[in-house]
């Protein structure tokens, strides 16, 4: 276990950034989101939830896959280079770290998405425990301990110090580069911090949320339920939930004609959009009820069925906070809880 005084954190950021890109929560124009560190930026480790999750660092909102050139009728394809420089993402909460494991299941399963794999190889995750969980948090439902986040290095922020504990080879390697700034220390303070956080978790309104009617077995059962008709009405089909969610991974592949070559890029997409499944021959999901149902069936039934019971939700609560119509996965989980009784 190591620690560094809070007032020395700018020095820590500068030291990390000297060797590799550093991404961390930054306050800008009144909101906190992950951004590339620069000496002028305003790091913000005190705000619990960033608006957008850090999934961008591994799965960017848009990225080029290749460029195609046409020369005298002949085509040539130039693939985009893979990321080959290291980076550190600091301040990830336990829920967001677990979300990376969810994305790994999709992108690292055969055939491997090499662009994602390169970023995972190059990235070091420095996670941060949740000193003050929010009322909309429910990571505990998915077996996530926000007081002891996974990650290459786990950290805890107290009033005076940032406590730093490497948890993997990558974490140890990073720590090794920062020994001048980190002082070794005992484990007692962090143990107390963890206890304090667990006590708060006991008071969270969503702590009793139960997944008893969800999981791989629900893949057939819940689809036909009349509950979906009752739930979906206020949905605006805007896609905000998908874009703030740390595990949503649907993407689109499109072309962009730059005038001197066509860039083939991929970008985030949302299964909530009306044209998501549209093809020349028709559309297999024509109503918003069907699209609404698909999103939650995927997260709570199909994904666990395909990946040994792992859910594609980590209880971060961003959808609870941000949906313009106040719909969210908690309401879906609860509606089916009642049905089971």
């Amino acid at each position: 276990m190591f620690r560094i005084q809070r007032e020395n954190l700018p020095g820590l950021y500068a030291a990390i950034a000297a060797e590799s890109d550093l991404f961390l929560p930054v306050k800008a124009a009144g909101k906190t989101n992950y951004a590339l560190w620069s000496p002028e930026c305003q790091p913000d480790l005190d705000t619990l939830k960033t608006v957008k999750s850090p999934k961008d660092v591994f799965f960017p909102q848009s990225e080029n896959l290749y460029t195609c050139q046409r020369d005298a009728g002949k085509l040539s394809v130039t693939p985009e280079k893979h990321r080959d420089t290291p980076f550190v993402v600091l301040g990830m909460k336990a829920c967001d770290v677990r979300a990376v494991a969810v994305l790994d299941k999709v992108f690292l399963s055969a055939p491997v998405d090499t662009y994602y794999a390169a970023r995972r190889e190059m990235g070091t995750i420095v996670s941060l425990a949740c000193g003050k969980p929010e009322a909309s948090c429910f990571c505990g439902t998915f077996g996530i301990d926000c007081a002891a986040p996974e990650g290459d290095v786990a950290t805890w922020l107290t009033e005076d110090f940032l406590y730093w504990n490497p948890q993997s080879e990558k974490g140890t390697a990073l720590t090794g580069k920062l020994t001048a700034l980190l002082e070794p220390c005992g484990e007692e303070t962090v143990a107390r911090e963890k206890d304090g956080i667990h006590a708060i978790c006991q008071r969270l309104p969503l702590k009793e949320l139960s997944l008893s009617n969800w999981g791989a077995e629900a893949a057939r059962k819940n689809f036909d339920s009349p509950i979906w008709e009752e739930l979906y009405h206020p949905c605006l089909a805007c896609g905000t939930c998908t874009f703030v969610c740390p595990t949503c991974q649907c993407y689109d592949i499109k072309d962009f004609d730059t005038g001197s070559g066509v860039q083939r890029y991929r970008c985030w997409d949302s299964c909530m959009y009306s044209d998501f499944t549209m093809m020349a021959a028709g559309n297999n999901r024509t109503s918003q009820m069907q699209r609404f149902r698909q999103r939650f069936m995927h997260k709570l039934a199909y994904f666990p069925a395909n990946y040994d019971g792992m859910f594609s939700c980590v209880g971060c609560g961003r959808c609870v906070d941000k949906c313009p119509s106040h719909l969210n996965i908690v309401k879906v989980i609860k509606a089916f809880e009642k049905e089971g009784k």
Partner: protein
Amino acid sequence: MQEMIQRAKALLESGQVSRVLGWKKGETEFDVEPAFFDTAESLDGLFYNAFCGANLSKYLIEAGKKEGKTLVFLKPCDSYSYNQLLREHRVEREKAYIIGIGCKGKLTVNKIPFDGILSVQGADYPDYSENLTVETLYGTKHISYKEAMLERCHVCKGKEHVVYDELLGESQDTVDAERFAQVTALEAMAPEERFAFFQAELSKCIRCNACRNVCPACSCRKCVFDSTAFDSAQKANTTSFEEKMFHVIRAFHVAGRCTDCGECSRVCPQGIPLHLFNRKFIKDINTIYGDYQAGADLESKAPLTSFRTDDAEPGVGRG
């Protein structure tokens, strides 16, 4: 609220309306969801408090395609949007039974800057508290009703409904700021300063489309930003140019039809003050073509869709 429920039940049971569009309460006072009610029994869940900021008029486009009338509770600002939808033939008047519900200002939890909010007491209708009590995981806090109010309520156009079948509930004036003050302040900035302000705000944009999807003026069946027919990087947040253009283009598309209902700013997950673009256009339209409020009535000619020989030429005659 009981009055609302009783009236809605009466209208539903008499067969005058086939369904009711209002709000229902979720877990907390600020977790309020627009909801449809089909049975008298379900109407016991009809809810209305100071957090019911959602503009229900846009849901009537789809609801109007169903059999029978929809009873809808419209706040004063919502009624302007409804009128505008009528003008654009997106809804039919006979498909809605409008109860103009009273309003004393609407709140948003985004303006309550405390961690771990569990509940907000004092946000009821019609009896609210000037000083809200906010229970949080980290202690009890307080905030004034006004501080938690949506920006648009501070510059409210007025608590009179412009279209309704009956009125219910009392309203209260909430204006304490000048409607175009923020726009005027921006206009007074040096161009670089103003650009830096908007660049900082718009770079937060995640292209989630909440603003477009909630906007009653944005009801195109096939939005230009969803079209594959032209070559811009729709959906992809590729460059800062892209997401700035999205907002500017959208503001142009709704100019003259935007009623300034403020929903775009309420729903933006990044808190971007999108209403500023729309309000700038409204201010300019008022200056160039005379005061005009979209949705105020059905008869007046909209300045951007009608031509008069004495119309000001752009760039000429502005003070």
